[in-house]
């Protein structure tokens, strides 16, 4: 079946002790270190996006507030959405893909470790391109609006995370703000796709002997589905962004109606990506929950094949529902009806998952650890988001809810109550494996309580203001609309939520140093990552296990089957050497794509384009010739 879990084509470099120092991090190709880099970056950007959210909530706390100006508010909600989706939830999931996936399938690393490092550095480059404008803007305010440098007066992306044309075309946004956004997303897209190819091949080719598809952990399964969604959906937004860039730079008319172009083309391409993206965000969390609930109920996942097939079905249907984001755009009755029905169908596999999770817990011996609380919270909160989703799957109802706060409530229940709760659960669940210590459980329960309270206080009332007609993306509102008390309540909730996250971060860093020591398998869990040491050795497994069950570690400990076995004798271990090439390649690709932004200002940008291409070619060519690739 699977090839042996050594990196193929790799000359032996033998065991190496874990090196330290900045250089070792810049050149690392170890999936665990890259996972940590993803995790810490995601945490930082999650906090940044949270602060942006807090400013938005503070502005809306009272009617006619003037804490921030209209353009700044618009930039902040643009960056809040962009950051949370692309720099918060996605890399948080990527942290777990990187760290846990090779461990779960009994591999020593991902199949292309350098490509993996390249993905991370490119992600970081893209994240910086999106956020550097915050540092530039204060210095460009004084620029004369009639000068050639006028496009610099607005650089923080402000076209919404959805970037609807024609607002984002040059006529209506003649500033660099949109260009930075285009470049950032383009870079992040390539980073995600590169990681996607890597994980697909890793999962398909690197599984330990005996690990058939139905013996794969559900988290691994959901990762596989997500990676297919990534590599198939990101090309659509890549094209959408290329066309926008062509309009902005070279005077084409893809989105410009006066020349026959159609602004809805953007929406079709964007949501062809954007809806699968929703599942890219939520499926990893569903995978985590499918690991945590069984572990802390001491039972197998109820109906595991059904949970897996539901995940696959959700992924497939995800490509057939994009136009439900466009019910108000006037696609015609037939299209509205068709997309409405496909959207409603998604409720079925989603419901299957929820019922299976509940029946997993049913009859178990439930231990309410923090990880378990967040997973149970996930089931409850995600259900809430799913149910409100059924409401706007009906186009007539959507005509009232679209772009109102009702929708804001809906997707925060899906993405915070869903995705982020799932990721928090994953952090509490796998922290002992990654650090060798427990993440403070006593504090964990306080964190869960505070986050749960703050979250519901912030987002539950949004259903009400939404139903009372409050539109999204408004920086101010008048008195007398009946929205005042609720908005104040939401703002209070947001600060409670932020306090909960703050407590989490404090306890996270404290536990990293002082947490109680955890053993190799502190939760008595079932998948292969728990047979490694905590934290795992650089090479993960001394010997590659052979797997006989979908719960190898549990069965080894509790029967009835053998679970897994280890081969006799010593194994020769291959590990790729560290390399700086991935970082150079990422800088090359990043510069190449960012240079287009600067083409608006000066043709000198072409030099940057050339430099980027040269660095890319140099790094790729030499990296393929470096020993150990």
């Amino acid at each position, binding site marked *: 079946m699977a090839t042996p879990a050594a990196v193929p084509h790799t000359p032996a470099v033998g065991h190496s002790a874990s090196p330290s120092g900045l250089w070792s991090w810049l050149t690392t190709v170890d999936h665990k270190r890259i996972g940590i880099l993803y995790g810490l970056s995601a945490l930082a950007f999650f906090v940044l996006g949270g602060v942006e959210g807090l400013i938005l909530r503070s502005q809306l706390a009272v009617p006619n507030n003037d804490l921030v100006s209209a353009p700044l508010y618009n930039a902040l909600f643009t960056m809040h959405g962009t950051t949370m989706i692309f720099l918060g939830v996605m890399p948080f999931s990527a942290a777990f893909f990187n760290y846990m996936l090779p461990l779960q399938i009994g591999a020593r690393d991902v199949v292309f470790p350098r490509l993996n490092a390249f993905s991370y550095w490119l992600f970081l480059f893209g994240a910086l391109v999106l956020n550097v404008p915050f540092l530039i803007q204060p210095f460009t305010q004084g620029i004369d609006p009639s000068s050639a440098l006028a496009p610099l007066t607005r650089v923080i992306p402000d076209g919404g995370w959805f970037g609807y044309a024609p607002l984002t075309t040059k006529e209506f946004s003649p500033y660099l703000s949109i260009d930075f956004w285009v470049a950032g997303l383009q870079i992040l897209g390539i980073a995600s796709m590169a990681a996607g190819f890597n994980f697909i091949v890793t999962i398909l080719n690197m599984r330990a002997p005996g690990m058939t598809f139905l013996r794969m952990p559900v988290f691994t399964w959901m990762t596989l589905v997500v990676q297919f969604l990534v*590599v198939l959906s990101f090309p659509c937004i890549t094209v959408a962004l290329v066309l926008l860039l062509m309009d902005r730079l070279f005077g084409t008319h893809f989105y410009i109606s006066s020349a026959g172009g159609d602004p809805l083309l953007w929406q079709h391409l964007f949501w062809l990506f954007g809806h699968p993206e929703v599942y890219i965000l939520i499926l990893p969390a569903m995978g985590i929950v499918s690991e945590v609930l069984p572990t802390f109920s001491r039972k197998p996942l109820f109906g595991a094949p059904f949970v897996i097939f539901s995940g696959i079905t959700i992924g497939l249907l995800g490509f057939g529902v994009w136009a439900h984001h466009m019910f108000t755009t006037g696609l015609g009755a037939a299209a509205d009806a068709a997309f409405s029905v496909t959207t409603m169908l998604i409720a079925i596999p989603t419901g299957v998952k929820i019922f299976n999770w509940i029946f997993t817990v049913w009859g178990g011996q439930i231990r309410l650890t923090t990880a378990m609380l967040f997973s149970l919270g996930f089931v409850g909160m995600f259900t809430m988001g799913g149910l409100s989703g059924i409401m706007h799957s009906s186009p007539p109802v959507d005509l009232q809810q679209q772009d109102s706060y009702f929708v804001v409530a809906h997707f925060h229940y899906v993405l915070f109550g869903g995705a982020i709760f799932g990721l928090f659960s994953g952090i509490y669940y796998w922290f002992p494996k990654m650090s060798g210590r427990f993440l403070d459980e006593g504090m964990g329960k306080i964190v869960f309580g505070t986050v749960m309270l703050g979250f519901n206080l912030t987002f539950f009332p949004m259903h009400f203001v939404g139903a009372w007609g409050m539109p999204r993306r408004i920086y101010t509102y008048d008195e007398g609309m009946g929205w005042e008390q609720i908005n104040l309540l939401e703002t209070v909730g947001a600060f409670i939520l932020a306090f909960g996250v703050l407590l989490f971060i404090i306890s996270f860093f404290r536990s990293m140093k002082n947490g109680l020591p955890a053993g190799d398998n502190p939760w008595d869990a079932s998948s292969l990552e728990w047979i490694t040491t905590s934290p795992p050795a650089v090479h993960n497994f001394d010997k590659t296990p052979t797997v006989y069950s979908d719960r190898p570690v549990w069965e080894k400990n509790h029967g009835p089957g053998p679970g897994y076995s280890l081969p006799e004798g010593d194994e020769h271990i291959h590990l790729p050497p560290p390399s700086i090439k991935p970082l150079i390649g990422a800088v090359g690709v990043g510069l190449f794509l960012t240079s287009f932004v600067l083409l608006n200002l000066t043709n000198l940008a072409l030099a940057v384009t050339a430099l980027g291409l040269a660095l890319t070619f140099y790094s790729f060519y030499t990296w393929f010739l470096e020993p150990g690739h």
Partner: protein
Amino acid sequence: MGLDNYKLAMWTFLGSECFFFGSLIGTYMSYRGKSLNGPYPLDVFDPAVTSISTFDLLASSLFMVLAVHYAKLGDINKMLGWIGATIVGGLIFLGFQYYEFSHFVHEGLTLKSNLFGATFYVLTGFHGTHVAVGVLLLASLGWAAKRGHLANVGETTEVIGLYWHFVDVVWIVIFTLVYLLEYT
């Protein structure tokens, strides 16, 4: 599993490319006939010229097959010869494209002139870029194979061959939908 890592990675990459070109071709088709002013496709197309370049690209795919064949047999010299032929085929195609683009511009069709210009140049331009990247890959492959840098010449050649064939197949689709459809 049956597939080599690089080959599997190439297949997933090509799956991704299908959506990339699918989006571009979809854009072209949805804007077909929507230009508000000329030049229109029939004003500029020369089917004879494009047929020759199409034939050339198809022929290069045949050369690629032969290159893979000899790479697998371990006959590096013959493999290099056919790689060279494939590269020449690719370069000739790019030459035709350069001729075609400059001819169209001369006829007044630019990126800015209308939707046809924009969709045509972006679609065929990205295809041309893929051919150029393919030529670069083949050249790097030949160079590395000649120097003996490659651990497994056969597999590597086959993986790059997959890419080359894909780029050809995309051209067949473009040739059919963009050019031939105008003459039905």
